[in-house]
């Protein structure tokens, strides 16, 4: 079968924040990988042959491909955040430092590509089974496009072979395509992207251009921050508005500054849409802020530690949004611990001096430090709007079954959730089982994104399981020897028993989306990275040798998995900083294979020493905060500073590939 936009049963849009992202192109395309026609056949070979018989006639129009070109057109989205009086603060500053930073695309490269199977049951129910982070996003998109009732669509998440945000929105499109073909063919359709298709057609991290103008006092205190953020949204908006929002709210870094003016825009270009990727806008703006701190340090003759220590936020300080930081604020602790563990200040100074004395051809070493933070959970009022539910019910054998829509994509909720449930309710871990994420069974406890799974949903699980246990205890009326026996007896008398709890954000967490003032996140995780690199004097290839990541994430629930998130996120950040480069020609990705889009291998990976600090936060289960995205924020700026320390080449852009370093070194010499 072959179908086009003319065959759609309903609106031609992937329902997400809106439905402006077409399911199939209708009359025009906005990027080279936009789906135009869908073909299914009984075998892969037959499908390839059928595809060869489809021809699409394109009339090329002039594309917009750079942020500079796109800046001349109206933005897809724009937001602003202002506090105090920027212009007079700038006018009164002893120094005004300007700088521009750029970050590139990043492709997720989950090892398992996108894939979905869709079919219609005899009763007309549409079922989709596949690799995804957000079963209810897929559900919403199918309901919308097929004009079906909620109960006529069933979405099941399989084990997810890596996500990193790449399986937040895109699986909705894959599910729609597979389901449209299943409808046309009258049989199940399996659609698995090969790696080439996955790189060419799916979303990437937004490239960004960030300009800073900072007023600083003589003693190195930040007085005024003027920040302009441009993000490349690609052809369709997808999740860009929320990515931009998180970017704005992390652009000032973990620093005190009274007067700020921040403007953020997402611009439209003619490439595949850019969307969610671990960190969700925060890594780009924190790279830029950390680079700006280093420019300030250089101008004032401070070392990288000192400029941060003079400005770092502490408990009782306010962020530029007005949010009062609570007792779990640990930025200074992370900064000082990282510096002490690595002897950073002495090492940095020694390597600065070594650089000045170095003879031609001698190997180059450098060390760099970054300080970063990450808001855990949805931005702004997201959690308040969702009021995510989690249900716990008794099974016939007396065990507790917990129902959530969360998927395990490697972050480990399949291990952490039972641990939380058993510990919260004082039960054995095999007294609790977890239902598969299947929308016909589980409530919509929200998407598996935003570092919210352990902190938000984990807390709900603790409450739901404890609530159910209390019901059994209250009925039993005396101490229980074996929970399952009591639960079975209770059910025989009472019938099915279940407890549903919904998330209620803390009352004080109020955020005004029109002014961007208030508590954008209930809490933050904090981190400081020290990266040491070796630079080849002939090729300028950068090899990270050793990373120390000091992270404060509230109470650590599972030490190995938590450290694993930080180890993996750190290497992903270093890949983005040093080697992962998407090359474009006329809007087409040139390096569209794993042979040409290079991610770190075991040989490129440094020793990563993760040091976890715990300042329990009362809002999370046992004091836990979000973890998953935090480590994406710190690696790139620390690596950039380390390269400067080693080579003296100023780094304003990533990835800092050898070819670019060579070019920047030439530009520096000419100056």
């Amino acid at each position, binding site marked *: 079968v072959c179908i086009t936009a003319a065959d759609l049963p309903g609106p031609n849009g992937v329902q997400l924040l809106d439905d402006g992202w077409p399911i199939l192109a209708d009359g025009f395309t906005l990027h080279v990988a936009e789906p135009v026609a869908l073909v299914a056949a009984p075998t892969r070979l037959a499908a390839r042959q059928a595809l060869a018989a489809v021809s699409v006639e394109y009339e090329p129009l002039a594309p917009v491909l750079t942020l500079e070109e796109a800046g001349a057109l109206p933005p897809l989205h724009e937001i602003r955040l202002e506090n105090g009086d920027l212009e007079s603060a700038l006018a009164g500053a002893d120094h005004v430092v300007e700088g521009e930073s750029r970050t590139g695309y990043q492709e997720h490269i989950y090892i398992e590509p996108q894939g979905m199977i869709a079919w219609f049951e005899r009763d007309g129910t549409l079922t989709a089974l596949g690799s995804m982070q957000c079963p209810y996003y897929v559900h919403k998109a199918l309901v919308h496009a097929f004009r079906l009732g909620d109960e006529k669509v069933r979405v099941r998440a399989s084990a997810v072979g*890596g996500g990193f945000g790449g399986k937040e929105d895109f699986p909705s499109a894959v599910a729609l395509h597979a389901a449209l073909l299943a409808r046309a063919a009258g049989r199940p359709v399996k659609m698995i992207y090969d790696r080439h298709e996955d790189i060419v057609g799916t979303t990437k991290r937004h490239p960004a251009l960030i300009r800073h103008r900072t007023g600083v006092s003589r003693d190195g205190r930040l007085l005024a921050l003027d920040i302009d953020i441009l993000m490349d949204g690609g052809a369709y908006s997808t999740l860009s508005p929320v990515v931009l929002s998180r970017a704005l709210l992390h652009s000032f870094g973990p620093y005190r500054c009274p007067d700020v003016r921040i403007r953020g825009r997402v611009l439209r270009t003619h490439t595949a849409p850019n969307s969610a990727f671990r960190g969700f806008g925060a890594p780009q703006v924190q790279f830029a802020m950390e680079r700006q701190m280093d420019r300030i340090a250089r101008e004032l003759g401070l070392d990288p530690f000192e400029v941060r220590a003079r400005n770092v936020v502490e408990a009782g300080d306010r962020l530029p949004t007005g949010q009062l930081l609570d007792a779990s604020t640990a930025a200074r602790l992370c900064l000082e611990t990282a510096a002490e563990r690595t002897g950073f200040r002495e090492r940095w100074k020694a390597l600065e001096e070594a650089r000045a004395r170095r003879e031609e051809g001698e190997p180059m070493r450098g060390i760099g430090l970054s300080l970063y933070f990450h808001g855990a959970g949805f931005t702004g009022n997201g959690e308040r709007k969702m009021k995510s539910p989690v249900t716990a019910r008794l099974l016939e054998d007396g065990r507790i079954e917990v129902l959530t829509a969360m998927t395990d994509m*490697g972050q480990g909720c399949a291990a952490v959730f039972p641990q939380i449930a058993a510990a919260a309710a004082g039960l054995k871990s095999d007294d609790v089982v977890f239902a598969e994420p299947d929308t016909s069974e589980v409530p919509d406890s929200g998407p598996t994104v935003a570092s919210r799974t352990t902190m938000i949903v984990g807390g709900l699980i603790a409450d739901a399981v404890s609530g159910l246990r209390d019901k059994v205890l209250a009925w039993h009326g005396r101490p229980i020897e074996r929970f399952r026996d009591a639960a079975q007896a209770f059910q025989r008398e009472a019938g099915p028993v279940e407890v549903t709890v919904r998330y209620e954000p803390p009352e004080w967490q109020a955020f005004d989306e029109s002014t961007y003032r208030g508590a954008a996140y209930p809490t933050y995780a904090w981190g400081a990275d020290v990266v040491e690199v070796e630079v080849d004097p002939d090729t300028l290839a950068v090899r990270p040798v050793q990373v120390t990541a000091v992270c404060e994430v509230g109470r650590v629930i599972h030490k190995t998995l938590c450290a*694993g998130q930080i180890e993996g996120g750190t290497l992903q950040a270093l890949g983005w900083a040093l080697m992962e480069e998407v090359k474009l020609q006329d809007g087409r990705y040139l390096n569209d294979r794993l042979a040409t889009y290079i991610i770190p*291998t*075991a040989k490129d990976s440094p020793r990563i020493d993760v040091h976890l600090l715990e300042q329990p936060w009362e809002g999370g289960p046992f004091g836990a905060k979000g973890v998953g995205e935090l480590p994406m924020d710190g690696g790139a700026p620390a690596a950039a500073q380390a390269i400067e320390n080693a080579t003296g080449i100023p780094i304003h852009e990533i990835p800092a590939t050898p070819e670019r370093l060579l070019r920047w070194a030439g530009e520096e010499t000419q100056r």
Partner: protein
Amino acid sequence: MNASFSVNGRPVDLEGHPMERLLDVLRERLGLTGTKEGCGEGECGACTVLIDGEPVLSCLVPLLQCEGRRIETVESLAEGPARSFLERFVASGGVQCGACTPGIVVTSWALLREKPKPTREEAREALAGNLCRCTGYEGILRALCEEPER
């Protein structure tokens, strides 16, 4: 063509196109879905299996090269001498999403059979053809080099 070889100690005899990929034979004809496809062009290592004891990328091996060979997949490691290594691998944080894991443990096991106590450099070298996007390789290397768990 007809091909006879062994998979995980059992004899296999089947008809197929000479260029049929061993990966597809394993997954689709023999139901051994432990072996994963990550790129289909020999870059990611997710489809690694052992042929006559050597780690090989099954997406690049056509059926015509399988005649008379001894093939071992990740399924064969579940029990037997690899068991304690696999347990250490999980406890050390070597697994997150699991998609690269079959290829990584097969490659690792081939190394450990040759060299029961590899250094970090030897382990890195052996694993250079196996991409992992989740772990940063730290948990994997801890398991291979028998360093303490975190």
